[in-house]
């Protein structure tokens, strides 16, 4: 067992730090947050400079962590362009990989994933969006909600029902995944405004009104879409855990900086114990989050994903991010409230919700443990 990162991964950490230092200025971060504006220029530069090296998933993981540690909204915006691409990697055919996946990994295109609907967030199998076969194409009707890259993506991977479920208990059957061109006739996008946090990211509602999708743009086999999406979530949740790790570590950075500069000290000249213990607790949680996230990643990157550890990493990272930002603001008082930490606090809460709520992750852990006998 070796807890040291290899030299090339360490190099990716340094590159991410340098990129964030150069481009994630407070002025840009604040403007993107205030105006709910996607940082198009910075994302373009990040693609040009190949900040995300998709040839090595460890590099992607540590890059997400470092960029988000500097600013969650900008960090997520920069690292979410290929969201969903692993579905092509594992289930797409060669033509789809060539046409859709490769341009995304090359930074030339942006991808989005349409799973969540207005009527059901966590309940993926309960989606209502339908795809009906009509000649050489499927016709999509319905909508998707809270879709990242909504106005930015060139294509979306969309989960839709292609056949009725065989029984109410088997709702997960009969779902399929399609590639939908954002310029398709009948496809409308409404940007969602007024988010609590991650306001630099672009989030939208998608509406499909008789949108035609060529048969060849179905990914994988008909009826296996639920399985594909769940497989993807076992990947993406690790990257969400890295987001949580970055946010929590960012909060810790700011609390330590505050402690050195402003914090009250006792008569013996040391930091007050209340603050010392809080720093220790946050630092320990950050370290625990990193270990569990990297453990989940090591399973995945060896192609032996462990959904129990993945869900543990995702929920624990989300809770740590929320906890760390909350405690840091409380302790830093007005200094925290008036610094970028307040943005971290707002941004952190989404991690408890997206890619499976914390409650859903916990249910997955227990149900799989009971079924399989342990993590």
């Amino acid at each position, binding site marked *: 067992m070796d807890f040291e990162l290899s030299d090339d991964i360490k190099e990716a950490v340094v590159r991410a730090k340098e990129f964030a230092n150069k481009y994630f200025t407070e002025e840009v971060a604040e403007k993107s947050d205030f105006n709910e504006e996607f940082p198009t220029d910075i994302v373009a530069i990040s693609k040009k400079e190949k900040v995300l090296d998709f040839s090595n998933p460890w590099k992607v993981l540590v890059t997400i962590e470092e960029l988000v540690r500097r600013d969650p909204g900008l960090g997520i915006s920069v690292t979410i362009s290929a969201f969903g691409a692993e579905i092509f990697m594992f289930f797409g055919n060669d033509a789809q990989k060539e046409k859709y996946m490769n341009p995304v990994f090359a930074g030339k295109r942006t991808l989005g994933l349409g799973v*969540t609907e207005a009527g059901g967030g966590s309940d993926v199998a309960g989606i209502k969006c339908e795809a009906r076969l009509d000649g050489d194409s499927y016709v999509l009707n319905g909508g998707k909600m809270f879709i990242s890259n909504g106005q930015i993506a060139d294509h979306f991977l969309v989960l839709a029902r292609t056949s009725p479920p065989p029984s109410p208990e088997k709702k997960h059957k009969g779902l399929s995944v399609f590639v939908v061109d954002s310029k398709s006739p009948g496809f409308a996008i409404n940007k969602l405004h*007024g*988010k*609590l946090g991650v306001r630099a990211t672009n989030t939208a509602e998608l509406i499909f009104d008789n949108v035609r999708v060529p048969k060849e743009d179905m990914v994988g086999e008909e009826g296996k879409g639920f399985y594909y999406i769940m497989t993807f979530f076992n990947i993406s949740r690790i990257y969400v855990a890295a987001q949580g790790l970055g946010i929590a570590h960012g909060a810790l950075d700011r609390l330590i900086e505050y402690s050195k500069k402003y914090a009250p000290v*006792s008569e013996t000249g040391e930091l007050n114990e209340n603050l010392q213990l809080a720093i220790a607790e946050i630092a320990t949680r950050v370290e625990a989050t990193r270990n569990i996230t990297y453990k989940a990643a090591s399973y995945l990157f060896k192609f032996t994903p462990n959904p129990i550890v993945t869900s543990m990493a995702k929920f624990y990272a989300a809770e740590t991010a929320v906890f760390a930002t909350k405690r840091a603001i*409380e302790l830093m008082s*007005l200094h925290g*409230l*008036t610094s970028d930490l307040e943005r971290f606090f707002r941004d952190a809460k989404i991690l408890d*919700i997206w890619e499976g709520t914390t409650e859903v992750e916990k249910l997955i852990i227990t149900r799989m443990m009971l079924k399989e006998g342990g993590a």
Partner: protein
Amino acid sequence: MEEEYEILENTVKDFNAKYVENNSIKFENESMGKEFVKLLADQGFFSMMGQSGEEVADVKTLSVVLENLAKSVPAVAVKTLLANSFLSLVKDPEVTEAVANGSKSGTVTFSDLLVGPGQNGSLLLSDGKIKGEKQFVVGSDSDFIVTLLDTGELVLLKSGFTAGKKLKRLGFRSIGFSAVNVNSSDYEVLSKEGRKELEKLYYQLSIPVAAISLGMSKAVSQKGLDYAKVRTAFGHYLKDFQPLAFELTSLIAETEILQRYFEVLISTSPSRKEAMFLKHKALALAKDISKTSLQIHGGYGYLEDFGIEKFYRDSMALSVLFHNEEHEMEVLSTLVFETKAGFV
């Protein structure tokens, strides 16, 4: 609750329904506008506290009003709290009349009590002028400001100051929050022992601040209850899922207990310790219950249209703008131990 308070509660409910609820996003994020501030003043909400010269300020009626204003838009409650704080310290009839009737606005800076010495700017009186800068001023867009000089005097600034660049705004976004640059010869010294006077007011506000927290907790828990009864997932109403139902129920139990304690305190003459107990617990509860309610709402809770996320932001902002955890726990520990405690 006494009949007098029930009548007051209904008055505020009617006021909320008529003037606040339809404008809640605007009043929270943008501006309340002069007309609305005048309406608040016309209700008599700005001058409910009396003068702080009295040993025990009359915070009871004010607290009932604040609790109920906070249920719709917490920023409106904070605006009202600031006006009352100001009027409790200022005696100049021309100024007090203008603030009480809503034609002018006034605020009090508490930042000297919330951050360490030298961390919130410097204001000095020299050659008949007050000069310098005060950081972290809530209500920096006001016409009058009561603030503390470095030398300890509490002063009323009537003119000769300007608000600086707006600071980041986690909560109460319609209320000015920035540094204030001062170059004023138009002032009045309110007290030579300004810090003592300011601290007295600060502790008198324990129950009103707790009341705002309680109002927020009640409003946001009601939203959670309502949503959990109608929203379904996996074929069941959210209310039927144990983790959600148990957590919300537990937090509502805390709210009810604190509400009873609040009612006891406002019908008696609470000690500083009791008032601080209430504030300490009510601030924490508002943060916890806002987080839970937001989680119940899922992605919708994250959007301002559903009126949940503002409670998540405001509950945290309130606990920083009118509260310093470490400092107050030191004071409270000393009251509990009946000897100096919480210091090394």
